[in-house]
């Protein structure tokens, strides 16, 4: 099967003859490595756009009073920050990793559906333009600006919003199509293209993690697309899905949104939860602990993730029984997550650890995401949730959940596999600098937000009472430190691409897996003949 896929492609490793030069190559490429790189570059461009937006917000929040940004623009900035980071950065970056690494890790020559792969990627840039264009037009004085409802787009605020909302709806449709196509491709690839002998339960954990992400995306994105279409209908075609006067219910939107929005958290987490054990194992020079337990935990997280959504809505006035159910079932997620933490710690326990940059990021991810996890347990508690909900405590919590996984975890994975992609070892001094600036900046940004939230600061306000001033000032300083850390990252990757110490095929002493059996940098086509697996 895998071999058949390779027929019709030139067997030689020469790049001439089967793709065109210049930009047409990137437009027409069906090669998983090219597409993976494009996903990653796209993701990081969006990271900088979303980061620039939130730094503008933090600049405004540096002091009480309105100095730089008026409330209308402020609402657009926080909304786009959320949408751009989740749909523009985190998901494409993870998909990029999967595209590049998945075939190499399961011994396949490419993704199963290469043209679909190309299409899936090339839907993204127009979607990103669609999402952000009203913002830039608004800056130039054309139109009402971008979607300004918060990334949650709660009705009826989203019914009231200007036409930036319509652009956002169409962008979400396109992003949804792209995610679904990418997910189909991952599932088909994993189910059909594993090297002979690699059974499902011998697959690398990264493949298991991304398989669950794909399953979740296929489950939730159609629901979300339906939901935003209902908003569109309410806005322009006189339906009343979310309007009580016509028999609708605004809270219905919250159910639809969070049915997508909560599993989305695990969509972003699971690829990284799959990648981290490889890094831990490599730098602890010890095999992965509890492989099966981790796989089953991925399944449990995906399953439970689909039935806990209304814990985002504890203040919306649900019945007593619903509140209790959603509290207890949310607490249940702490078990599979605890299994993952247990296995990761047991993997490095009594290993022979060294602390190269990928390991630092993986460990940083473990510790900080641990705090994100336990504060999540606090939020699940309905009895205290009213005080946390929609306050900065919650903002700090979900940044402790997202940033250490979707960003630091992705960086751990990128640094780990960078020698395979570029053929060069990265600059360790710069890498360590990047790590420590990240740690200081991140904690300085978000620890004060926990306190501001407990003291009573609501989220999404452009100006705040004086008692929150000190925390906000600290947080803003931290945000700029954190922002600068990403510049170090880009410079370091650029330097590694351009040159550096030659990487061996097996770039890290303790690294295991098929990807380390091919040359560094990996040739344009790998595993045209399936490798022999004798695990």
């Amino acid at each position: 099967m895998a071999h058949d896929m390779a027929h019709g492609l030139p067997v030689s490793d020469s790049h001439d003859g089967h793709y065109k030069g210049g930009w047409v190559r990137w437009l027409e490429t069906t090669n998983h490595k090219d597409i993976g790189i494009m996903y990653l570059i796209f993701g990081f461009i969006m990271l900088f756009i979303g980061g620039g937006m939130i730094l503008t917000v933090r600049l405004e929040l540096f002091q009480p009073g309105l100095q730089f940004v008026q409330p209308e623009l402020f609402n657009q900035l926080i909304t786009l920050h959320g949408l751009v980071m989740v749909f523009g950065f985190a998901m494409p970056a993870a998909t990029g990793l999967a595209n590049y690494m998945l075939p190499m890790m399961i011994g396949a020559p490419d993704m199963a559906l290469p043209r679909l792969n190309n299409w899936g990627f090339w839907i993204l840039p127009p979607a990103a333009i669609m999402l952000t264009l009203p913002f830039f037009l608004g800056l130039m004085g054309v139109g009402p600006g971008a979607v300004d409802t918060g990334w949650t787009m709660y009705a009826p605020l989203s019914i009231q919003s200007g036409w930036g909302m319509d652009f956002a709806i169409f962008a979400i449709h396109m992003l949804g199509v792209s995610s679904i196509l990418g997910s189909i491709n991952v599932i088909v690839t994993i189910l059909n293209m594993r090297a002979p002998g690699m059974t499902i339960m011998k697959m690398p954990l990264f493949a298991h993690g991304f398989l669950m992400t794909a399953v979740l995306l296929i489950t939730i994105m159609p629901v979300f697309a339906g939901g935003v279409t209902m908003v569109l209908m309410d806005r322009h075609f006189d339906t009343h899905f979310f309007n009580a006067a016509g028999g609708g219910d605004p809270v219905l939107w919250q159910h639809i949104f969070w049915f997508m929005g909560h599993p989305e958290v695990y969509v972003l987490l699971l690829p990284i939860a799959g990648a981290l054990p490889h890094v831990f194992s490599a730098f602890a020079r010890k095999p992965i602990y509890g492989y099966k337990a981790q796989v089953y935990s991925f399944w449990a997280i995906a399953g439970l993730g689909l039935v806990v959504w209304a814990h985002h809505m504890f203040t919306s006035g649900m019945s007593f029984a619903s509140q209790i159910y959603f509290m207890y079932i949310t607490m249940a997620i702490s078990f599979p997550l605890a299994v993952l933490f247990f296995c990761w710690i047991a993997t490095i326990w009594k290993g022979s650890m060294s602390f190269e940059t990928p390991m630092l990021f993986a460990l940083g991810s473990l510790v900080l995401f641990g705090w994100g996890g336990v504060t999540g347990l606090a939020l699940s508690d309905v009895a205290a949730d009213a005080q946390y909900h929609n306050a900065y405590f919650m903002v700090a919590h979900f940044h402790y959940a997202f940033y250490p996984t979707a960003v630091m975890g992705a960086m751990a994975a990128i640094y780990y596999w960078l020698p395979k992609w570029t053929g060069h070892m990265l600059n360790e001094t710069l890498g360590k600098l990047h790590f420590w600036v990240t740690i200081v900046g991140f904690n300085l940004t978000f620890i004060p937000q926990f306190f501001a939230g407990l003291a009573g600061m609501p989220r999404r306000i452009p100006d705040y009472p004086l008692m929150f001033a000190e925390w906000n000032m600290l947080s803003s300083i931290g945000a700029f430190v954190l922002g600068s850390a990403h510049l170090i990252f880009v410079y370091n990757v650029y330097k590694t691409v351009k040159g550096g110490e030659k990487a061996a095929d097996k770039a890290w002493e303790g690294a295991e897996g098929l990807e380390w059996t091919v040359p560094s940098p990996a040739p344009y086509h790998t595993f045209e003949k399936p490798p022999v697996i004798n695990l």
Partner: protein
Amino acid sequence: MRSLYKFGLSILLALGSAAALAGYAFNFPDPVTPIARETLHMHNLVMVVILIMFFVVLGMLIYSFRTHNKAAGFKASKFTGPTNRKQWLWALSPFALLFVIDYGVFGIPAFHAVALYEDTRTDAELVVKVTGSQWLWQYEFPAEGVSYTSRLTTPRDQIDSGAAKGANYLLEVDNPLVLPVGKKIRFITTSNDVIHSWWVPAFGVKRDAVPGFLREFWAKVEKTGTYRGQCSELCGKEHGFMPVVVNVVSQEEFAKWIASKKPPVASAPTAAVEPVAGTAVLAKAQ
């Protein structure tokens, strides 16, 4: 490596102690209702437990970093899972502990606390209807036939042009909600336009105001005083500028106040059921 690590740690410690010394507000305000007291207890309990969990695991990790270290010459083991009964017991015990924490230590008091929160109707002595509106709050005492609006009074120049800010910057309104101390009050929330959320941290309550629907909660304030909060659901442009201010006064003072607010004409009860007409009341409030 180690020096970098110490450097990072010392920065974090310095920041932590600086923050503690500056006396910043960092926890829930003093609770003044039964719900707020429950909420604070629950919060303190949860925080203590999760801080212990986090730092115990972090301590194990730091021990591991220093000991199971290639530079220190530690040779890697090869184990990949529990193999005998004793190891299984060790591996499963954290999860048994977590089960007790989740459904015992947190779950049981939380169940009772939520039951308390939802008990909005028994013994309620007063009903207050809170209507969110872009961007002000409308308060109504249906039985007494009193209703009025409450909007921000912070001057624009304090917000926009850096004029000296008053102590209650963004937390001051023209007509605060006035409540009697020591009486159980049933609140009903709704909205005229989009979803808002009524939040007074000292009361421990936050409830969304959903257009077209009624939601409820209750409060029994035990101490007179002025309590402040803000709208906590994004409701458009002026979301940050629709504060909640509640004056809790003695029962006699409240009786006097509500009498002074009652419309002078005899047909007062009909006014009670009439919805607040937005524009007319707005004009009056200005």
